[in-house]
């Protein structure tokens, strides 16, 4: 099997769960897994820990110029690493940084590139993968025809498994030219300590049925008890009841949690497009005809203002 390089991302010094999935995916393909990580905020011990998920080696670009995700600079260094390591395959998690970076890498190294990959490749004849299309409403099976391949994997494409072991960490020189740093990132605004919606395993989402932003306390309370992220429907973010980054749907965040609880959301097709990769969907709506019930696994017809506080208490009691 060919040599595989995995681009891993970290946040606040921790390897992201989605990147661990990318490592697990690469391990699942067989062969040796080398990873590449950027910046000085992630510790050697955190990187060595990638061995526990299947990586044998970590290339660490330990250079503070890479602490911010400058797309062109990351692309240049990853392309350089693929060439130096003789890697035929690059695996990474779909993300706001990974996708634009991988597009540039694909051109640099002349690779076939597929994003939103949902399963391990089928290499019985050629190199085929399954990818999500039409915002989760269908799949396409595509063949990658170039010698080099890049796979940007969708959340839950691989299960993170602890396999034991430690990865060796090697310094890797960031070779990006000054011109690759022409994009100046002046400020980063990021919610810290919160569970991030795109990566959350549990999500509680509210819609217009909640009647106003002042009623979000009970959504946040339920989310807190569950350890869930909070989301909302498009009308709610359009009316500024909730911030834009909580908007779940066709043109907002697409979530793939284990559990999605929708409160007071009717289930317009554009909203469903953002949640159709969820493993389990609970719909709570006072309208028994709400279309969301057709896409749900569990449903309660009832007034959110009565059901949600009771549900929060029941979950507290069950924990």
């Amino acid at each position, binding site marked *: 099997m060919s040599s595989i390089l995995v681009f891993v991302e970290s946040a606040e010094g921790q390897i992201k769960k989605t990147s661990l999935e990318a490592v697990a995916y690469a391990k699942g393909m067989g062969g040796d897994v080398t990873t590449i990580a950027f910046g000085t905020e992630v510790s050697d011990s955190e990187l060595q820990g990638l061995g526990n998920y299947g990586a044998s080696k970590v290339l660490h670009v330990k250079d503070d110029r890479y602490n911010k*995700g400058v*797309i062109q600079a990351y692309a240049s260094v990853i392309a350089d690493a693929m060439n130096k390591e003789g890697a035929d395959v690059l695996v990474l998690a779909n993300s706001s940084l990974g996708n634009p970076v991988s*597009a540039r890498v694909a*051109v640099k190294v002349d690779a076939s*590139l597929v994003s939103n990959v949902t399963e391990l490749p089928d290499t019985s004849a050629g190199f085929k993968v399954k990818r999500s299309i*039409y915002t989760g409403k269908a799949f396409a099976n595509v063949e990658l025809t170039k010698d080099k391949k890049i796979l940007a994997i969708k959340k839950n494409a691989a299960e993170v498994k602890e396999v034991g072991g430690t990865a060796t960490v090697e310094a890797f020189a960031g070779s990006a030219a000054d011109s690759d740093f*022409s994009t100046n990132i002046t400020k980063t605004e990021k*919610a810290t300590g919160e569970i991030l919606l795109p990566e959350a395993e549990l999500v509680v989402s509210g819609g217009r049925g909640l009647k106003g932003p002042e009623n979000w306390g009970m959504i946040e309370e339920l989310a807190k008890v569950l350890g869930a992220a909070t989301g909302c429907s498009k009308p709610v973010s359009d009316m500024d009841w909730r911030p834009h980054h909580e908007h779940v749907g066709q043109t907002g965040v697409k979530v793939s949690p284990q559990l999605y609880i929708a409160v007071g959301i009717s289930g317009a*097709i554009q909203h469903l497009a953002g949640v159709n990769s969820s493993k389990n969907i609970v719909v709570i709506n006072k309208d028994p005809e709400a279309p969301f019930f057709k896409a749900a696994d569990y449903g309660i017809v009832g007034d959110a203002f009565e059901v949600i506080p009771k549900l929060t208490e029941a979950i507290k009691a069950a924990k």
Partner: protein
Amino acid sequence: MKILVCITHVPDTTSRIAFTDGDKKFDANGVQFIIGPYDDYALARAVELKEQSGGSITVLNVGGAETEPTLRKALAIGADDAIRINAEPTDSLFVASEIAHVAKDAGYDLILMGRESIDFNGGMVHGMVGEILGIPSISPVMTLDIDGDTAKMAREIEGGKEMLEVKMPLVAGCQEPIAEWKIPNMRGIMSARTKPLNVVEPSQNQSGTTLDKFELPPAKGAVKMVDADNVAELVNLLKNDAKVI
């Protein structure tokens, strides 16, 4: 300022998705096609930037003759002229290399498009165009303002955003809330009929993938309804049946 806006011609977001020809072709029967919603944001922002500081907007699509009404709609919204690259797009690389070929040496200050198409959701074309042309590519872009020769943007990151500045020319993959979608007015619709729409033959024929077949997800099982007075039952199901809490 010279702006190129690349748009996709995609099924309306409410469309039922189905396939024909042994699951090798999208079934367009009865489907309404629209400008990709993310591309529509990019176009709306381009129109605003032109209103502020002048210049021109060219709108481009890679597709067959059936996509021309979508290009005409973009002209009605405010683009000055249109280019249709006459080819059935096969993948991101195909589209990106054709766009880059048209844009090369054409002197665009900004090349805008949606963060992704809503049919294939690749999200790769802007980055590939940027790399082929050797200029910065930024995505997903939430705000875009121009100050002299510099573009100031907010890029969405997981759980927040980063503010960044880069000199033009550049490629940006756009998303809300960069601008409000614009609805063409009657004057726009009338003038769109006579604006130039140039058809260009493809010249690059690059691709990195071939389609094997499409498939639909398995049908969803029936919903289990729980009485509103018995939320403990829901908790029990989530804990012991779904095993998610």
